[in-house]
């Protein structure tokens, strides 16, 4: 028992150290690499953006629109008792933009994109492709991790905004069809209470989540050992660890935004 706790603590501190090291390494290649004429290839960033972004759009859209629908019905159930059904509009919009969109989108992307990054890099590691890159004097972090990091960093906020809009659309459908709120009034109430800061705190969160997903997935992938089983473990671990860190970071960031009255 004590042995397991000791081992877990050791693995945890090793992981944190490794992830911070990877982060610094990525930042080095983004900001200092170009000064030394070691550039990041734009085409591989775009390729990863297509992979991470475009192909997640449909999934993010559906997750958000259903969340919007459910959120509208659940809040209507409460608000009807107070005769304040119209506030469904603002409740849906604000809770989506501040909280649900960034978190749900990040979880979806961690499950869909993060896992596949970990699996791909893990397979490359156990089949000596990473070692081959190193022997060819091609830094694996610059060549593999940086494009994936940048792609997630730019695409996750875009997906989050898409999720905001789809969620509001879901709420709008419930509000105007089932609750019979005037569509014009619904939109007016939405924008009356939804402030710009609600949107940008959500987007700010999603930048942090993107960093978490990319770092965890790349770290787990690049540190895979022990063959096919190791690849499976790296994939699972990348999802589980991202989920925990995303929820933890969300709690932390929400507290900061709340107490500093942003």
């Amino acid at each position, binding site marked *: 028992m004590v042995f397991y706790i000791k081992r877990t603590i050791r693995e945890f501190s090793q992981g944190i150290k490794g992830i911070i090291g990877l982060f610094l390494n990525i930042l080095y290649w983004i900001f200092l690499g170009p000064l030394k004429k070691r550039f990041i290839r734009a085409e591989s960033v775009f390729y990863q953006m297509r992979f991470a972004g475009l192909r997640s759009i449909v999934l993010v859209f559906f997750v958000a629109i259903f969340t919007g629908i459910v959120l509208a019905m659940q809040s209507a159930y409460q608000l009807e008792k107070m005769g304040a059904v119209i506030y469904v509009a603002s409740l849906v919009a604000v809770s989506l933009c501040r909280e649900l969109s960034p978190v749900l989108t990040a979880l979806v992307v961690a499950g869909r994109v993060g896992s596949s990054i970990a699996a791909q890099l893990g397979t490359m590691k156990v089949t*000596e*492709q990473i*070692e081959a890159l190193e022997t060819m*004097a091609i830094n694996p972090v610059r060549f593999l991790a940086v494009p994936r990091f940048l792609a997630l960093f730019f695409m996750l906020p875009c997906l989050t905004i898409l999720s905001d809009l789809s969620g509001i659309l879901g709420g709008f459908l419930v509000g105007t069809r089932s609750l019979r709120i005037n569509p014009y009034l619904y939109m007016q109430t939405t924008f009356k209470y939804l402030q710009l800061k609600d949107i940008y705190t959500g987007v700010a969160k999603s930048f942090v989540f993107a960093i978490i997903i990319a770092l965890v997935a790349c770290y787990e992938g690049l540190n895979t050992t022990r063959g096919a089983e190791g690849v499976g473990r790296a994939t699972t671990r990348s999802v589980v660890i991202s989920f925990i860190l995303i929820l933890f970071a969300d709690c932390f960031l929400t507290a900061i935004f709340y107490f500093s009255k942003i």
Partner: protein
Amino acid sequence: MKKEMVSLVGVSKSFDGRKIINNVSFDIVQGETFVIMGCSGSGKSTLLRLMTGILKPDEGRVFIKGKDITTVGPEELDEVRKSFGMLFQYSALLDSLTVNENVALPLKEHTKLDENIVRIIVKMKLSLMGLREFQNHYPAQISGGMRKRVGLARAIALDPDIVFYDEPTSGLDPVVGGVINRLIMDLSKKLFITSVVVTHDMSSVFRIADRAAMIHKGSVVEIGTPQQIKTSDNPYLRQFINGSPNGPIDFFREDLGIFEELSL
């Protein structure tokens, strides 16, 4: 006196307290084909990783073209690496890139050559390997022997002085193995490339080696020309050449302790 291309001086390496490479020293001179032979698990791949700077030795020094790669910084190490190529045991081609893109990769990363020139060089390297029709295939779509040849084309893309080969013929049928051996010899004789070949295939040792070293449990047990190897009465070598299960190389001896373990 020919120039030393690769020199190992008292190199040792342990993993988890187990000594895998034990005080290995040898020099490989320009243009020669140096074969390192030994059984599976004797530490051949580890030795190659030490020579390519993937691993750092615990003790000793590794010189590539006179530069000590155990003490250089990462940027200098990369400069050294551009002057050698490596063929991996399972080819290690990037599976998301086509054959063409794999061979072009070192050129695109390390030279400022025009795209058309890169295309021509890639075509030349691939036709040297007899692979021109397969340019647009992905590694998963071609056979193991072809993958080895693509790996070789990639290894020589930057016209290296040294090429390291990790078991270039293992897992191939004898004919394809022969083709690979011929390519290794061609590169060494025509382009004057220094070759370091790791193998456990005796027939290729006699076919391609200028000199060969036998390692066992991470130590060099014999080193010499193929003729000296053939006539040596070193018991390790005799057993290895004859493929005999009995002799000083004993896979079971390590397990003798099992009886004590079982009767606790």
